[in-house]
């Protein structure tokens, strides 16, 4: 695992801790800058990996 996993510059959206109750409907795709531009509806029925990452 190429850490660091400790420093996060800012928290994305809410951090309520209700992670287990999340569903794909909680995904907000935002603005696509690369790759396929799928909406949540397009992703339904697929296996979806949502990855939070940084360039630094």
């Amino acid at each position: 695992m190429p850490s660091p996993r400790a420093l996060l510059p800012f928290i994305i959206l809410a951090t309520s801790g209700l992670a287990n109750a999340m569903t794909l409907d909680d995904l907000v795709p935002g603005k696509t800058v690369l790759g396929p531009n799928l909406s949540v509806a397009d992703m339904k029925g697929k296996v979806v990996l949502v990855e939070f990452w940084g360039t630094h």
Partner: protein
Amino acid sequence: MFPSLAGLYKKYEKDGLHIIGFECQGSSATAIGDYAKAAGATFQLAIKGGLRGAKISGIPQGFLFGPDGQLVSNDVFLSTNGQFAFSPLNDPSHGTLLEPKLKALFQEITSMPIGPGPYTKLAQLVAQVKANKDLGTVLSTLRAKQDSADADEAKEAKMMFAALNGAAQKELDQALKIKAYNSANALRILDKLAAQFAGDAIGEKAKAEADAIKQKQAAQPNEPQAHRMLQQAKNYQANGMPDQAKNLFTEIVAKYGETDSAKEAKAKLEELNNK
């Protein structure tokens, strides 16, 4: 991380894997694009979005959702041996390999049937169905091609249309059948059909039904509970237990007076009191 993620996507995209990445350090769209392209990433990369309710403990961090839209893991990571791993929700301290789990989840993806074939004229549409892509357009195209001047094409279109439309209709019927007592499951099916078959009549019908359920849920949030109690009260009545039935009908009216089930309970109560 990124080259490995790019490799994972390329390996499993055809099986139904979708990856969406959110850059969290405020880099520009150009910088993100350059970084990702250098790593060979072809999956969806976005900014100004995220995951409502997500608890991000550090980056990178992955959240995995199954084909039913439910969260499978909030901790997908690249292990020290270079393989992707994940921690199950019920056992967050335990890391296990991701790829076997992905393969199991792919098995849960229900691809729609296309009929026995063989398909020589409609190979492109077969590929679209297998990829679960734009099925509304596929159905609409098949409707038109059933009248094709090319007899072979028309024959294939009729065969595929019957299989695909029949399967979609069957799911729609199932959702409509259960919506009164299991609106959550009905909604899940209807939302899926609406998305899968957008642009075709069956997708529009599913969307209209899903919207109606959502409106009803918003107007009568207690209806599912009231409905369950109503069924129980009816069972009491049917099994010769009128006192228990009356008590439960009364409770439904008192607690959930604004719901359709409470209105029915009130009528049942009057019927019992008049006996």
